[in-house]
């Protein structure tokens, strides 16, 4: 690129031009004023010659032609160093002027990347920045270390009305009034003088002026005097005058006062005068001066001799170290070289200029005149640029100048800025935008905030222009610029800068940057009074969770401040405060399924379905294949839509989170709904489709008003909450449709701190989502509901169902139902998931007093519980209320419920209530689902051990081990019952003091022994007198306090227990059930009596079908001296089974080798009365009790007795008959003997009628210990 055509080139051609000092008399000024202009203003449009085309010859002999030329006309009074404050004011004006233009821009959308990229290069940076740059450079005009601002010529103007115009000229050039530059000897006062007589045509004829001119010519010189006539136009606003001025308006000529008496002739005259002045006077003068100075420099400085001399001379001189270096007068050779250089520069002989500048720079360097040195460096840099030579040198010079200016401190600061501006322009011209921007950035640091802001903005633009584009740098520098603008109170510019940077930081994951940008833009917009945009930006930062508490509250306060400033409630789509977790969204609607409480809704649907399986009627429409998924007869054409009932609330659960650390006040949270009364499913379908574009609608126009709650069709609940810092709450919103139709849940709206209304629409689940899988389908939000006609609805709960209970706890509770509607319901059924724990009572139980109702008032002879139970009863208890029960509208209904805490652990109890509508409705039936959680704590562990009584027939010894598992509770034993009429339980005859163990304190265990007797087969006399029944009272209260175990509910619960425990124990048939009833010993008597019933079922008895017993003398006195003793004993055998049994007794002499194997044999033969193994660890005695009969007789090799009379006897026994087998034992020595080494082998011969299980078909019984003491008798 041609440097002369570049911006910098044109800038230099216009700015570094010869200055003409203008001196006018007041009368001459007044003549110009008449046209509303000053004299300089009047001439300045004509001081730029675009095609002057004059030949110029400077130092070299070769002339060249100048095309463009400009002279600067300046009043003498303006030729002085600029006052900083005034200059800054002027610059500020430039910025503020631009300020007003930016305002409409700010209301538009911020620019996007494409906008910025597509902009022409020149428009990237605001145009006024160029003006600003020039103004900034102009603040340095007329400095004393540079000469290009020094006047080249002087124009003295006198009016024709002035008296004694010749002497006026002398007065004008009076040294007192001349600029200090001339007076102080910095520049040569002998400059080119040009004299002008200004004649106002309206003041009179031209003759006076012509006379004056003639006089002037004679005294001042022929060529240097001119006459200029103005104001020839007779009246103001000549039509041609306006037109003639037009081309010059662009040059800053603004005729404010309106009156203009200049006509075309005047303008042409001015133009001619200026042309003549420039080409015939100024340029020749400069040429001549250059030649003279060049000659001078050549003689004093050029050549080897002069250089040596110069060096030597300078060295000798002790140069004082001063900031400005030594004072150079216009006569000094340095000043002359500088003038030579500058003149050459102005006449565009850059080679000459450069050589002089280079010459001078070494001098100044040696003199340590740094400011001058920097100035010269700067100029040589520009020369290199204009010559388009050696870029490196140009840059080196500029950098050198720049750093030198900076080094000399504050006086050089602005010079550094100017140098930097030129340098940056130079780099931009050459396309080195990155370097240029860094230069801008460097100079911005040296300037006050306003200047630095503009400079930073230019730096930012450079980054955008650089290749590749550096957008982040662009953004950053714009932010810096914006900040500086803000500091210098230029808010509009600040906003503009930030706005331009917005696209860089759009969707930025750098959180702090994002917050800073949006917060500041928002705040400043707010300050400017553009609240809507302000709020839009502040919305981006209100939900910043990562900021500190103070920052968060600052953001929030500003936000609310601006919102309040708008004076109205503000609607915000997708307000981020608080955050609604849309994935947690759940719509709870009740069609035929109703729920007692909110917690019940969360229970998985499959649990309910399984529970209700048998209760609800199966779907009437049978789907033949998978295509026929939508039965045509169904009133709900839309398969996807759910059903809700008019008048019943549809609930919506959602999680709300406060992301801030500050607590926020959220009020009026409610649903946005639509209810269309046309019962048309297709319209609802359409609604779904249009919902996809809903977000777009919402963003374009806040359509919230269209969703105002329609009081006629539905009501929505409103919720106010305060969310603490970081808190998450689960809220429930409700909408109650009133009429039938299609209800659509559109979104949520809420009010934040009473000022901002946020609203958010639900993302509608599309078809795609549901296709993803079952899970997706399950989670998809069902937001379209078909509202059907009002239906009866039952609500209900179980009164005071305990959440914690001890095992065995038995309570009577009430199920309360309430029909809230007007219509009656009928055919009520109930299903309970755990009938082991909860059993519905009978209608008569309701007014019973618990636990007295369980007491046995009349001695019942039957402990048999009716065996009506069926298998279904145990798995999910279906209970049908009596058919005649109808719950009328508005009525309440109670039903007794028995609760029994069967096993310890956590229990989820599900209850489903089925009912049908009295009248025909859309839905024929409904269910009420209730769910309870009960924690059952362990209380008493009861286990039983039964072993055959060896001393009596038909009797068993029962060992009951009770362990109190609680930590603090004590329990009193009340009653032990065995179920069935077959068995009677009684205390052991030897120990009647069972009442000693009536209470069991915490963590203690107790073992008791009882006797049970089979009274079913052998109706003994004891049973009749009642002393031995199936119940045994353990408490001292006596037999009056016995609970009736064969009645509901204990009997019912017992069946459940038997069913559940039966699964565990796989014993043979002959089993025994025990029920232990205990009472909690209440710490304070106020508590109602707590009853615990423990059911131990299917305790296995010894399953032998036969009983046998040794009978015989226990003590025998015999004289062994005569013979061996013979003891006659008999074995009584009883067949208790219903079959014939053949039986053999085998006796064996000596020690049985079988002894060791007996225990294992016994344990293998079946449960020996134990089934609860868990207690074995606790009760150590159990193991030692086992197998008491094998006597350790191994020490004796020979048995001291022998069986005689028979070694094997065979007996056949009829059912329920006894036989006696006599046995004889021969004893050889006195002592005590255990006649237990015999075995009974039996075989059952089953009759046709009954079946005997395999286990009891045949067996072997070991003999019981039978001790006989034989004494040596007296002779």
């Amino acid at each position, binding site marked *: 690129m041609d440097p002369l055509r570049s911006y910098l080139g044109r800038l230099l051609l216009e700015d570094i031009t010869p200055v003409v000092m203008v001196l006018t008399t007041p009368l001459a000024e007044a003549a110009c004023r008449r046209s509303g202009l000053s004299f300089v203003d009047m001439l300045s449009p004509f001081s730029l010659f675009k095609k002057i085309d004059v030949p110029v010859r400077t130092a070299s002999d070769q002339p060249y032609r100048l095309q463009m030329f400009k002279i600067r006309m300046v009043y003498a009074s303006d030729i002085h160093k600029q006052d900083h404050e005034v200059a800054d004011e002027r610059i500020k004006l430039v910025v503020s002027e631009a300020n007003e233009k930016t305002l409409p821009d700010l209301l538009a959308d911020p620019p996007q990347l494409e906008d910025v990229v597509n902009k022409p290069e020149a428009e990237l940076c605001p145009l006024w920045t160029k003006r600003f740059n020039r103004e900034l450079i102009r603040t340095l005009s007329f400095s004393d270390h540079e000469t290009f601002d020094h006047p080249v010529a002087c124009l003295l103007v006198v009016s024709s009305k002035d008296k004694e115009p010749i002497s006026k000229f002398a007065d004008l050039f009076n040294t007192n009034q001349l600029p200090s530059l001339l007076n102080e000897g910095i520049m040569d006062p002998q400059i080119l003088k040009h004299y002008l007589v200004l004649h106002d045509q309206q003041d009179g004829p031209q003759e006076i002026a012509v006379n004056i001119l003639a006089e002037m010519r004679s005294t001042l010189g022929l060529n240097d005097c001119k006459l200029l006539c103005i104001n020839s136009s007779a009246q103001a606003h000549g039509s041609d005058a306006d037109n003639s001025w037009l081309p010059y308006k662009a040059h800053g000529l603004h005729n404010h006062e309106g009156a203009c008496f200049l006509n075309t002739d005047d303008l042409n005259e001015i133009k001619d005068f200026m042309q003549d002045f420039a080409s015939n006077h100024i340029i020749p003068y400069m040429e001549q001066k250059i030649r003279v100075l060049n000659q001078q420099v050549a003689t004093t400085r050029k050549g080897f001799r002069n250089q040596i001399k110069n060096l030597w001379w300078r060295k000798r001189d002790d140069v004082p170290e001063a900031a400005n270096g030594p004072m150079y007068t216009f006569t000094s050779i340095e000043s002359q070289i500088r003038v030579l250089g500058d003149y050459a520069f102005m006449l565009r002989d850059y080679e000459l200029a450069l050589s002089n500048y280079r010459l001078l720079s070494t001098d100044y360097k040696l003199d340590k005149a740094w400011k001058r040195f920097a100035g010269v460096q700067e100029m040589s840099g520009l020369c290199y640029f204009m010559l388009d030579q050696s870029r490196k040198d140009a840059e080196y010079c500029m950098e050198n100048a720049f750093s030198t200016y900076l080094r000399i401190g504050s006086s050089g600061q602005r010079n550094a800025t100017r140098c930097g501006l030129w340098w940056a322009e130079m780099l931009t011209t050459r396309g080195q935008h990155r370097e240029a921007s860094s230069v801008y950035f460097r100079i911005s*640091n040296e300037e006050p905030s306003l200047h630095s802001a503009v400079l930073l903005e230019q730096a930012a633009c450079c*980054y955008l222009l650089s290749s*590749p584009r*550096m*957008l*982040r*740098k662009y*953004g*950053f*520098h714009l*932010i810096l610029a914006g900040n500086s603008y803000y500091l210098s109170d230029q808010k509009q510019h600040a906003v503009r800068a930030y706005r331009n940077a917005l696209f860089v930081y759009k969707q930025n*994951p*750098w*959180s*702090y*940057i994002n*917050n*800073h940008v949006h917060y500041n833009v928002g705040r400043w917009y707010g300050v400017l009074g553009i609240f809507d945009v302000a709020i839009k930006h502040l919305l981006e930062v209100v939900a910043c969770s990562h900021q*500190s508490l*103070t*920052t968060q509250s600052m953001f929030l306060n500003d936000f609310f401040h601006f919102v309040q400033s708008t004076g109205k409630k503000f609607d915000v789509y997708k307000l981020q405060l608080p955050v609604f977790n849309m994935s947690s969204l759940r719509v709870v609607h009740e069609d035929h399924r109703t729920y007692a409480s909110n917690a019940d809704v969360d229970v998985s649907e499959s649990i309910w379905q399984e529970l209700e399986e048998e209760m609800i009627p199966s779907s009437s429409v049978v789907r033949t294949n998978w295509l026929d998924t939508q039965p045509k007869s169904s009133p709900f054409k839309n398969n996807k839509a759910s059903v809700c009932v008019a008048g019943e609330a549809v609930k919506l659960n959602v999680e709300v989170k406060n992301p801030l650390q500050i607590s926020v006040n959220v009020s009026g949270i409610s649903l946005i709904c639509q209810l269309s009364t046309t019962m048309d499913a297709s319209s609802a379908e359409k609604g779904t489709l249009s919902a996809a574009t809903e977000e777009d609608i919402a963003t374009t126009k806040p359509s919230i008003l269209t969703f105002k709650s329609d009081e006629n069709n539905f009501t929505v609940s409103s919720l106010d909450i305060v969310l603490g810092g970081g808190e998450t709450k689960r809220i429930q919103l409700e909408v109650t449709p009133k009429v039938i139709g299609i209800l659509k849940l559109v979104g949520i709206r809420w009010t934040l701190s009473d000022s901002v209304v946020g609203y958010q629409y639900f993302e509608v689940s599309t078809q795609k989502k549901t296709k993803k899988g079952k899970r997706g389908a399950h989670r998809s939000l069902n937001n379209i509901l078909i509202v059907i006609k009002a239906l009866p609805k039952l609500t209900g709960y179980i009164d005071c169902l305990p959440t914690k209970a001890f095992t065995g706890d038995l309570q009577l509770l009430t199920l309360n139902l309430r029909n809230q509607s007007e219509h009656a319901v009928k055919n009520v059924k109930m299903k309970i998931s755990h009938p082991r724990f909860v059993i519905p009572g009978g209608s008569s139980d309701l007014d019973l007093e618990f636990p007295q109702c369980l007491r046995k008032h009349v001695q019942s002879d039957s402990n048999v519980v009716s065996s009506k139970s069926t298998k279904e009863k145990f798995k999910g208890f279906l209970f049908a209320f009596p058919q005649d029960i109808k719950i009328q509208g508005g009525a309440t209904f109670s039903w007794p419920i028995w609760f029994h805490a069967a096993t310890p652990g956590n229990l989820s109890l599900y209850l489903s209530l089925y009912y049908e509508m009295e009248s025909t409705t859309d839905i024929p039936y409904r269910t009420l689902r209730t769910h309870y959680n009960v924690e059952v704590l362990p209380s008493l562990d009861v286990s039983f051990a039964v072993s055959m009584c060896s001393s009596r027939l038909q009797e068993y010894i029962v060992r009951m081990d009770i362990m109190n598992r609680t930590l603090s509770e004590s329990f009193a034993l009340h009653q032990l019952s065995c179920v069935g009429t077959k068995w009677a339980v009684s205390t052991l005859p030897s120990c009647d003091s069972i009442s000693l163990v009536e209470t069991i304190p915490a963590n203690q265990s107790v073992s008791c022994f009882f006797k049970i007797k089979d009274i079913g087969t052998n109706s003994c006399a004891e049973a009749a007198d009642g002393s031995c029944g199936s119940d045994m009272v353990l408490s001292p209260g006596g037999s009056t306090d016995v609970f009736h175990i064969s009645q509901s509910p204990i009997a019912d619960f017992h069946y459940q227990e038997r069913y559940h425990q039966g699964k565990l124990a796989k014993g043979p048939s002959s089993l025994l059930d025990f029920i232990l009833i205990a009472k909690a010993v209440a710490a304070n008597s106020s508590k109602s009596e707590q009853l615990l019933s423990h059911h131990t079922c299917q305790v296995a008895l010894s399953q032998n079908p036969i009983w046998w017993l040794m009978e015989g003398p226990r003590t025998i006195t015999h004289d062994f001296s005569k013979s061996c003793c013979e003891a006659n004993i008999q074995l009584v055998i009883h067949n208790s089974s219903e079959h014939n049994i053949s039986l053999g007794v085998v006796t064996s002499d000596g020690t049985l080798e079988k002894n060791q194997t007996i225990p294992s044999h016994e344990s293998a033969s079946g449960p020996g009365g134990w089934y609860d193994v868990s207690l074995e660890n606790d009760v150590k005695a159990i193991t030692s009790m086992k197998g008491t009969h094998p006597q350790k007789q191994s020490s004796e090799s020979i048995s001291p007795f022998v069986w005689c009379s028979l070694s094997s006897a065979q007996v056949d026994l009829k059912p329920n008959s006894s036989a006696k087998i006599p046995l004889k034992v021969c004893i050889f020595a006195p002592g005590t003997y255990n006649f237990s080494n015999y075995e009974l082998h039996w075989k059952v011969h089953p009759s046709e009628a009954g079946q005997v299980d395999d286990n009891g078909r045949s067996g072997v019984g070991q003999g019981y210990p039978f001790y006989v003491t034989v004494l040596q008798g007296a002779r």
Partner: protein
Amino acid sequence: MASTACFVIVSKNDIPIYDAEVGSAPKKEDQAYQHQFILHAALDVVQDLAWTTNAMSLKSVDRFNELVVSVYVTAGHTRFMLLHDTRTEDGIKSFFQEVHELYIKIFLNPLYLPGSRITSSHFDTKVRALARKYL
């Protein structure tokens, strides 16, 4: 230890996945965003510079007044950026290398999704310890 030091790990998508103020100077609220701005802007320079060299450590790539940005680019184009005000080239280099090792360990975690934010507190403590050691 440097009085100001801000360490950021930037994923290849230009998202900061870890940041820590590791300088000894007390943390100021208003500096947090300034540091982010400088580091964010320096990404432009890194973008150019990263392809001009084979070395992972790019040394100081950018400066803002007295603050210098040093960058280390991993093979996966994850950038470790340190904004600091003291010049201890060796220390910074060692710091980066050790952090790289830590980062690889994080990367090896099968539960860590590459490019997601590093939330491991162990990593955080280790990085801060390294900063105390080297910077």
